[in-house]
């Protein structure tokens, strides 16, 4: 495989087990050993190899490639240059490799990763998998961390035991991945999907993987993602007819505020708050597209408060008043009583009434 080799597909089509159709055709796999090199005066040479498109390792990588679209669930977007120009060094290196997948071009990607890898991130094994599906070209980048292990070799009736430090993929569920897709090399890609299975909270992706190595940000801005959830919650409240679910949504809206700064999604919030299936369904169906329910963003408390049109006041006599924020002062009259306390008055038709153990 020379430097100038071009992409040729349909070499190893992976059969879709359900439909029997060929779904993804892997054409190249390269692998590199990445040493921590951030802030180091000299960067170690990067060893690399072209992985044959058959055998057990290929089968394992093909499996990872096949599930990549499902696993990588965080949308990212490449950053432009600080002067606003539509150019990104990391993207350029990735596209150059995708155009002509070769060991030297793949090494350029490995160098980008090595340059930002700290000792804390440690040694890693990088795989670059080039493939094609019905929508166009795909590039999957996966990094597996080095782990430790013990090997045992039989020597007649004895065994030889050795401690080894460069063990990779012992746990194939612990890795970082990034998936990029495009209809053509000319069109390229400006967005992609990532996952960081090394983080306990998989909704995040290490800064070093997304921000530094890929020079990207979350595709959703904090404000857009937060506003979307606030609007969905508000719509769910309006559409919901079950008072118990309404109350649950109201409570949830108060608790959500504590998530300021967290990388999350509506789905994750619902799961973390252990909302009932009724409340979860109400929120999910309030999004304009189903995909948005699981869309990742960084929660912004101020944006949420600004968008949520819902206000709740609790009094020291045990009464709780709740109304939409925009109409609160219109439907609930607030006045100062002679006692120095605040008097709230309102009138309307009772649409539901029930006894509850808790608020």
């Amino acid at each position, binding site marked *: 495989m020379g430097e100038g080799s071009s992409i040729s597909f349909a070499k190893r089509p992976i059969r879709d087990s359900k439909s029997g159709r060929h779904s993804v055709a892997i054409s190249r796999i390269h692998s590199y050993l990445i040493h921590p090199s951030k802030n180091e005066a000299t960067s170690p040479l990067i060893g690399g190899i072209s992985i044959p498109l058959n055998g057990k390792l290929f089968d394992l990588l093909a499996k990872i490639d096949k599930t990549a679209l499902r696993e990588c669930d965080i949308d990212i977007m490449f950053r432009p240059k600080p002067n*606003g120009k*539509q150019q990104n060094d990391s993207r350029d290196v990735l596209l150059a490799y995708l155009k002509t997948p070769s060991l030297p071009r793949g090494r350029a990607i490995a160098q980008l990763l090595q340059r930002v890898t700290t000792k804390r991130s440690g040694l890693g094994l990088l795989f670059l998998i080039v493939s094609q599906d019905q929508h166009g070209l795909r590039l999957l980048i996966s990094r597996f961390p080095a782990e430790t292990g013990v090997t045992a070799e039989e020597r007649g009736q004895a065994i030889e035991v050795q401690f080894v430090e460069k063990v990779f993929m012992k746990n194939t569920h612990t890795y970082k991945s990034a998936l990029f897709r495009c*209809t053509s090399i*000319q069109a390229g890609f400006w967005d992609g999907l990532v996952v960081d299975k090394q983080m306990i909270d998989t909704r995040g992706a290490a800064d070093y993987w997304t921000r530094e190595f890929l020079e990207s940000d979350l595709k959703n801005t904090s*404000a*857009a993602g937060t506003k979307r959830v606030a609007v969905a919650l508000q719509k769910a409240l309006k559409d919901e007819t079950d008072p118990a679910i309404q109350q649950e949504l109201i409570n949830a809206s108060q608790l959500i505020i504590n998530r300021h700064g967290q990388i999350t999604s509506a789905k994750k919030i619902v799961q973390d708050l252990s909302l009932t299936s009724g409340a979860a369904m109400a929120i999910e169906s309030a999004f*304009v*597209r189903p995909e948005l329910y699981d869309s990742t963003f960084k929660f912004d408390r101020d944006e949420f408060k600004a968008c949520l049109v819902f206000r709740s006041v609790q009094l020291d006599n045990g009464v709780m008043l709740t109304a939409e924020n925009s109409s609160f002062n219109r439907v609930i009259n607030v006045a100062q009583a002679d006692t120095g306390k605040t008097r709230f008055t309102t009138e309307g038709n009772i649409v539901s009434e029930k006894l509850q153990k808790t608020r």
Partner: protein
Amino acid sequence: MTKSLKESYDQRYDKVLLPIAANLENLLADHLKGRPHIDRIAVRAKSPKSFLTKALKRENGKLEYKDPLGEIQDQLGARVIVFYTSDVKPISRRVMKYFRHIEMLNKQPKSEAEFGYFGKHFILALPEDAIPKKVKLLDAPKVFELQVRTLYQHAWSEAEHDIGYKPARKLTKIEKRNFAFTAAQSWGADRIFQELHKGLKRRSG
């Protein structure tokens, strides 16, 4: 190729771009709600004729776009027209608060001695909220173009586009000078209105 490209774009225009354009306009209006001095917010889907003209553009005999459907980024074009030059910055900040950008350029003539087009241009990630449920995400463009400019910048640009962008013949020197003159007048009008606005605001404040 042209025929299939035309067919592909016609289909995209009707089934994908037009419905997204309507949603995107609403979304933009919602994100910019409450901002003062906005004259209008508009989103258009690039017409098939305009798309084909751009797609078949050649430079040095070679087609500029090898994959026009994937490469042309202004298939959806949005405009926010504001009253004063001082409104461009806060609107741009607001845009960047809600949309991820891959390009942000201040378009202006290369030399300080020239007058021509002024405007702020963004290429932004198309938010999924703007894509109707019936449209598959993979069928929608990934990005759209947004221009923020003043009323005078907009007026000049529209007239220049109509008269000067694709003239039947080469412009004469005096015609070119006339264009520059109108651009200078627009620039001057923006400047005076900005000063008036600032001065009156200070006095009333």
